[in-house]
């Protein structure tokens, strides 16, 4: 990890290259993180990837965390690794939920509520969006699909954005904090008749 002054140096240099892209930095428990503007996350990643002497070329992981009830609520994390210098840095882009602003019903906790269908029907418009970094890091493809699958975050420019772990016809974004645990009925022979239409 870069130490705290090293992190500030990186921030300063990115500020010079693309002013306003970095909103904040955090250095917590020996881990460095850059909190960046979600619209300009590609600028930051490209700078870290291409600048001579930086070379954060290995993307370990892309994952998302739901910070509900904080606003903006979703944090997309990019864990970058600099192999020559043996340093890790985390780039964090905070996204707010567009469904929360146009009526609270869409973010309803109940998966069976009509609000969820409305959210699905509204299509991509109701989902938070961020630029895909697949061109920069081809290995991000599966990771971004996983984030989309679990959190419903749309990666603009991703070559093949489909669900990856859940079934294709699944509705809802299960790793969001307002998605309840234990909502899926398990089918056995004894309750097959009571769940009509499950096979459709």
């Amino acid at each position, binding site marked *: 990890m870069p130490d705290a002054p090293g992190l500030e140096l990186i921030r300063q240099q990115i500020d010079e290259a693309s002013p306003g892209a970095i909103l904040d930095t955090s250095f917590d428990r020996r881990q460095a993180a850059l909190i960046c503007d979600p619209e300009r996350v590609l600028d930051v990643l490209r700078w870290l990837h291409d600048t001579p002497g930086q070379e954060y070329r290995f993307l370990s*992981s892309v994952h998302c*965390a739901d910070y509900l009830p904080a606003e903006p609520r979703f944090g997309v994390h990019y864990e970058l690794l600099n192999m020559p210098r043996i340093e890790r840095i985390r780039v964090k882009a905070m996204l707010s939920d567009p469904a929360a602003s146009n009526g609270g019903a869409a973010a309803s906790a109940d998966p069976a509520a009509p609000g969820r269908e409305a959210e699905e029907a509204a299509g991509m418009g109701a989902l938070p969006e961020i630029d895909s970094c697949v061109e920069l890091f081809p290995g991000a493809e599966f*990771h971004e699909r996983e984030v989309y699958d679990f959190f419903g975050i749309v990666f603009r420019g991703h070559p093949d954005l489909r*669900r990856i772990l859940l079934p294709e016809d699944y509705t809802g974004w299960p790793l969001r904090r307002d998605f309840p*645990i234990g909502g899926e009925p398990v089918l056995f022979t004894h309750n097959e008749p009571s769940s009509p239409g499950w096979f459709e």
Partner: protein
Amino acid sequence: MSTVEREVSRRPEPDALEPETELLTVNMGPHHPATHGVLRLVVQLEGEVVREVKPVVGYVHTGIEKSCEDKSYWKVIPFVERMDYLAYYFNMEAFCGAVEQLLELEIPPRAKYLRTIHLELNRIHSHLVWLGTSALDIGAISMFWYCFRERDRVLDLFEMSSGQRMHTRYFQVGGVIEDIPTGFAARLRAFCEEMPRRVDQYEALLDHNEIFLRRTRNVGIVPRQRLLELGVSGPLLRAAGEPWDLRKAMPTLAYADLDFKIPVGTVGDGYDRYRVRLAEVRESVRIIGQALEGLPEGPHIADQRKVVLPPRSELSTSMEALIHHFKLVTEGYRVPAGEAYYAIEGPRGELGCFVLSDGSSKPARVHVRDPSFANLQALHDMCLDGYVADLIQNLAMLDPILGGIDR
């Protein structure tokens, strides 16, 4: 066996193709023994040549990450163990390490050494299962029995130290649950003595096996740069010549004190992947031997009563201990708010665990960066424009564990 032979390309000649150019889509899996789990591959074939591979995963997705959010920290450990079911000690270590980082808890030296010993035993166990099943795919059935014989000896050791053969829950936040029992060291030493001889036998069986050599050499080569772009780590990357190992690069536990080497390959084909893994088994045996000789005295778990269960013997005499025990078992401990990403070198590559804490006794998010998940993306590059029989070999040498991919 000559070096000249290795330079012969295994890519099919253009005029060796079938006359028709129509693409045939074949669905391999999800239930096929050669897919090492429940993996489905949608393959487009032109004659016998693979033109497109699309892995379809998710058949054993069980929502472990979501379940973890509903469990207190100490109850998450058995959940994460069941992700990559051949590397359960590594999953535990990744999670416990992340939580220890959040708690800023230093574990005692003896616990570090005990963890190192068990991690390396687990690496041997994982590589043995890989070798047995992969050799089986390529047609060497007897390897399977020999590897599983040695694997059982590792499981016997796990049973001795923790009471369980698989999914042992041996690592705790703060150390390990129990010290090793009497007699464990002697049996471990006997195992370390025997294992290199067994590896010699495996090599004797496979290195002079014409079929094995022909099927693995010069097959599935992906350039090192491309592997790095794809986020591939572990033996696959090292076989391509990149000496990257987190045990050396960012040493945790006792790795900084121990002397071991990082085996690397030169060509990056299936044969190099096999050689690198076998050499890793030898290095793991060396690590275990050194860690056992240098095992420090002292407590096996941190003396931090807010996090670690008090010793059983104190419960009947100490009111304090009883209160701590009750609090830890009912509510669990609280972890200060923050987030941590802790990565270790698993048998398949970088195994990282991200834990987000909101200050309560349950994690707000647990994410495991499983190496198999990232490595599987390289399958397309390995198989493209090769024969369909080589696809099986590539998949075997990739060593994906679907429990880890699907989580």
